[in-house]
């Protein structure tokens, strides 16, 4: 069983998203540790990108703050290496294709394997362009996570048959950010996925409240929360670890 699959082995998984270096890498390390201690089953670490086209204003803001603080891919690799001395929860990177491509696919993905990153989420890499990184990911045993959207329709079968790690189900149209209501027919998307694969499915985009998380967890194997956590970090800055930890505990217990 891959590390990512094991994240879903103990019941519904809670997956927080944290932008590395927002506001500093030291703060990120504390937040990651607090997340792991308070029930996060898998942690999505964002490597900031200058032009994050799939993000709403909240996560865009985190990207800008982190880059202004001088964060780089190499500094993030060093941070993960240090975190891995005591943090065992599975971790994946979320970033944009150019961050990986520009670093060099082989160099980036081999580094992921080396420092203990289990998977890679690239929102601007659809199924048709997977070959850009898939062979290198396979070579180093880093799962390349597939995304399925409300508009995927007939593409669901094709994407889920080749998926690895877990499937990231995008709950709604649009970019990341909290939403009051999620109206997509997610249960039919999940059942379509289930016809093709038994790998875990996690729902993300727009989830912020425990009740929403509970609803989503009924449909899938896990929930992903980003913007709501980033808002807490924006508010509490260097002291965000405690409030983020409390929030994760509350969300996890709702699942």
């Amino acid at each position, binding site marked *: 069983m891959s590390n990512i699959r094991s994240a879903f082995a103990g019941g519904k998984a809670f997956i927080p998203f944290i932008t590395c270096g927002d506001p500093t890498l030291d703060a990120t390390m504390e937040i990651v540790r607090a997340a792991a201690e308070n029930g996060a089953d898998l942690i999505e670490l964002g490597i900031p*990108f*200058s*032009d994050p*086209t*799939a993000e*709403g*204003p909240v996560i*865009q803001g985190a990207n800008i703050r982190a*880059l202004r603080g001088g964060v*780089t*891919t*190499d500094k993030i690799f060093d941070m993960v290496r240090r975190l891995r001395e005591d943090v065992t929860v599975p971790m994946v990177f979320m970033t*944009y*294709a*150019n*961050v*990986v*491509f*520009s*670093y060099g696919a082989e160099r980036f993905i081999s580094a992921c394997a080396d420092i203990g990153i289990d998977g890679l989420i690239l*929102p*601007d*890499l*659809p*199924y*048709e*362009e*997977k*070959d*850009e990184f898939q062979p290198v990911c396979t070579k180093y045993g880093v799962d390349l996570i597939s*995304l*399925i*959207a*409300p*508009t*995927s*329709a007939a*593409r669901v079968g094709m*994407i889920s048959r080749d998926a690895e790690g877990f499937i990231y189900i*995008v709950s709604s*149209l*649009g*970019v990341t950010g909290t939403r009051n209501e999620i109206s997509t027919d997610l249960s039919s998307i999940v059942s379509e996925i289930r016809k093709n694969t038994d790998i875990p499915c996690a729902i993300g985009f727009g989830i912020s409240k425990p009740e929403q998380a509970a609803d989503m967890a009924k449909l899938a194997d896990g929930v992903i929360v980003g913007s709501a956590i980033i808002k807490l970090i924006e508010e509490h800055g260097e002291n965000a670890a405690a409030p983020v930890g409390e929030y994760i505990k509350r969300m996890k217990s709702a699942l």
Partner: protein
Amino acid sequence: MTNSKGRFGIHGGQYIPETLMNAIIELEEAYEHYKNDPEFNSELTELLNNYAGRPSRLYYAEKMTKDLGGAKIYLKREDLNHTGSHKINNVLGQALLAKKMGKTRLIAETGAGQHGVATATAAALMNMECVVFMGKEDTERQALNVYRMRLLGSEVVPVTTGTATLKDAVSEAMREWTKRISDTHYCLGSVMGPHPFPTIVRDFQAVISREIKQQLAELEGRLPDAVLACVGGGSNAIGSFYHFIDDSTVRLIGCEAAGRGIDTFETAATVNTGRVGIFHGMKSYFCQDEYGQIAPVYSISAGLDYPGVGPEHANLHDTGRAEYVPVTDDEAVDAFEYLSRTEGIIPAIESAHAVAHAIKLAPRMGKDQIMVVTISGRGDKDCAQIARYRGENIYE
């Protein structure tokens, strides 16, 4: 890349969120159908001729030719099109296609405002809703075009993220499209973005080189020796080059915006200073730092102020078929004034980049040689800004 579509050498592809994939596939299928549909083509030709004013003139710039003392210079007058630039060629094609697809709403990005104005115009003509995203900084340096778009019934959304220029307007238009797909077509303004946009926009702009070839055959009975056009994303340039790509004797020269110079950070000369990357749906050349963060580019020209270039240009550079030369702000402003005084034609500051290189190149060519320079748009929109550049404060 077994599944990847829309490649020009290593460049191109479809690097976009899954949410947009079906919309892109639908667009490609519709385009493949309508591009060979006689009714679609006759409707488009009718619009281009009777609404946009095509064919545009190929004008012999006699005074400029004599003044420079070298190659015979022809100007392809895209500035004479309705709405004042080549952008209308692509927009009429895409708006008609969108209409056939049952879309009722157009969204677009714009830099200088020319593509936004063209899209707003087509939307007014075809009874479609229209929202244009424009960098806040550009809404300030191109205030007149913002007014024109609103006058035409469009909403203009000032974009404040990132550098608040063209790249951020593209990002915001892409974000908007992922929010609302079913009734909305993203009318992309250049030969960039994910497949099929680079091909669709090129095909709609190829009318420029088709006409140049035919007009020059009538006027001179031969091919030109060089074709020059400015390059931001590269739509007027690919339009000017396309029907000459197989004619190996024709030099194809793209003029990039070097801003304050390619040895400075204040430049937008992508081919000259960038490296291969993946951004805005395509693999191509981009101005970026060592970690792949997109660079905040600079040019006096809002229309060329973009950190990437269309994938077909990237490939024409790789294969050596086209040359890409940098032109600085100073050179472009000098050329803006030169063409105004010499020929009585005020070019867009974007087009002035091509004129600037023509001024350098023509004297080095023989008098028996022919050069065509595409004047992609007219310069009325730039007058206030150029006046300020020269230290004169005028109000629009």
